[in-house]
């Protein structure tokens, strides 16, 4: 069934269709509609879930972890300052190996106060041990939340589904809501292998010395490596059941591209238009969208960047004191590969618009090999 809905409501519908059983959430612009819709689903009886109106995001993440530890499918949503406030518990969730899913609306960090989009909030959390999926459109958002539960529950690693503030969260697009019966088949009831169970009591998270902690972390990374096959399998199953194809990356006219843009989020969507416009004008532009940032798709980045004349990474983020974050990771993935020029362009921090003309401008610079590594596109000096 198709509905014209905002990205936020796509999240809400996904939580409902995925049969999230416990949602513990705290409001923050621009996430509020996510939880308001979930609240009304619960109140109307459309969603059989307990909604815990927690008193902060830190508590939201804690309560979500608790519900998952007790064996229920648990979910929350947040943004920016809220995600930052959850930081300690994000580590907790990953290390406790609970398969919770968080939808994060990418909103720039303050101060100064801002509500517009950039990726520093979610990317700041990249070391916490969560999977991260960067969405391009509202259908992507809905489908990613559903897939995330399935992947997380198979590898016991929590997932973060990320969408741009306002460009997706508040923008309406036609979204196909999959049939509940089919989703139930795709994503059966969560049955935790390790949980709080009076019939089989365990203590979780007890003091662990250097002689054992190391192996627990080794196991987490081992499961991240295992997750790559699981992700590909889940995406294949999703395509078979619902007809929509997703990848850990998505190339667009990339094979013969002279300049390859590496993009994510809504910039990836705009980039497609830029690619089409460039091609019309005889410029062989292409793009590679990175959808899964964690686990980082090294293999696929190496595959698609191989032999390219010029690669332009557009980062809507910055790791201050270092580099654009996607740029760093792409560069790292290509280190052992035959050298190709990779250029770093920063754009769109704090929600500044990145339009087709901006992307074409960046592409022209990359074509000419012009980059200050990084170039802050459009900065008014």
């Amino acid at each position: 069934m198709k509905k014209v809905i905002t990205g936020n409501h796509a999240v809400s519908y996904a939580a409902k269709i995925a049969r999230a059983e416990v949602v513990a959430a705290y409001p923050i612009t621009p996430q509020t509609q996510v939880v308001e819709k979930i609240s009304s689903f619960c109140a109307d009886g459309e969603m059989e879930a307990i909604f815990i109106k927690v008193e902060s995001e830190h508590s939201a993440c804690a309560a979500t972890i608790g519900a998952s530890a007790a064996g229920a499918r648990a979910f929350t949503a947040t943004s920016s300052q809220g995600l930052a406030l959850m930081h300690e518990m994000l580590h907790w969730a990953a290390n406790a190996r609970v398969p919770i899913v968080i939808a994060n609306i990418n909103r720039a960090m303050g101060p100064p106060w801002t509500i517009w989009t950039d990726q520093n909030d979610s990317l700041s959390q990249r070391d916490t041990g969560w999977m991260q999926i960067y969405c391009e459109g509202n259908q992507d958002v809905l489908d990613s939340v559903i897939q995330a539960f399935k992947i997380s529950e198979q590898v016991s690693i929590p997932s973060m589904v990320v969408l741009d503030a306002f460009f997706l969260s508040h923008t309406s697009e036609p979204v196909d809501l999959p049939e509940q019966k089919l989703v139930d088949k795709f994503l059966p009831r969560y049955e935790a292998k390790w949980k709080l169970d009076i019939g089989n009591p365990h203590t979780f998270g007890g003091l662990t010395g250097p002689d054992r902690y190391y192996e627990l972390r080794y196991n987490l990374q081992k499961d991240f490596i295992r997750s790559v096959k699981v992700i590909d399998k889940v995406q294949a199953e999703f395509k078979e059941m619902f007809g929509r194809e997703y990848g850990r990356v998505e190339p667009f006219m990339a094979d013969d591209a002279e300049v390859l843009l590496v993009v994510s989020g809504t910039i990836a969507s705009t980039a497609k238009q830029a690619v089409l416009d460039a091609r019309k004008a005889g410029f062989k532009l292409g793009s590679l969208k990175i959808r899964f940032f964690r686990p980082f798709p090294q293999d696929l980045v190496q595959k698609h960047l191989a032999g390219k004349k010029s690669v332009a990474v557009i980062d809507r983020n910055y790791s201050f004191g270092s580099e654009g974050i996607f740029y760093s990771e792409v560069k790292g993935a290509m280190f052992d590969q035959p050298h190709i020029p990779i250029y770093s362009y920063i754009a769109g921090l704090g929600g500044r618009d990145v339009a087709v003309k901006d992307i074409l401008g960046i592409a022209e610079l990359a074509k000419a090999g012009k980059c200050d590594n990084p170039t802050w596109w459009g900065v008014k000096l």
Partner: protein
Amino acid sequence: MSNKYEVKITGAKDMPPMAASLGKMLYNLTGSWRNIRPVVIPEKCTACSLCWKFCPDFCINIDGDFPVIDYDYCKGCGVCAQECPSEAIVMEEETK
């Protein structure tokens, strides 16, 4: 130390994904902590069970007519001797 409560973990493959307990702390013989030990004088005992009630290591057995200390776990805190209303428990130097 090695006793019947020991959980053997050789490496990553033996571990649950998260740190989940696999055995009981009975493995840890805290009797090695003490410098003094409680000694029961059965003739003085009035079977009031106060020693058992206040033992922070729950290592006093009162199934019989007078308390029996489990020296594997007794830390020698002295609470039982202090609380006994009939001086039926005295603390003595631990002899090795």
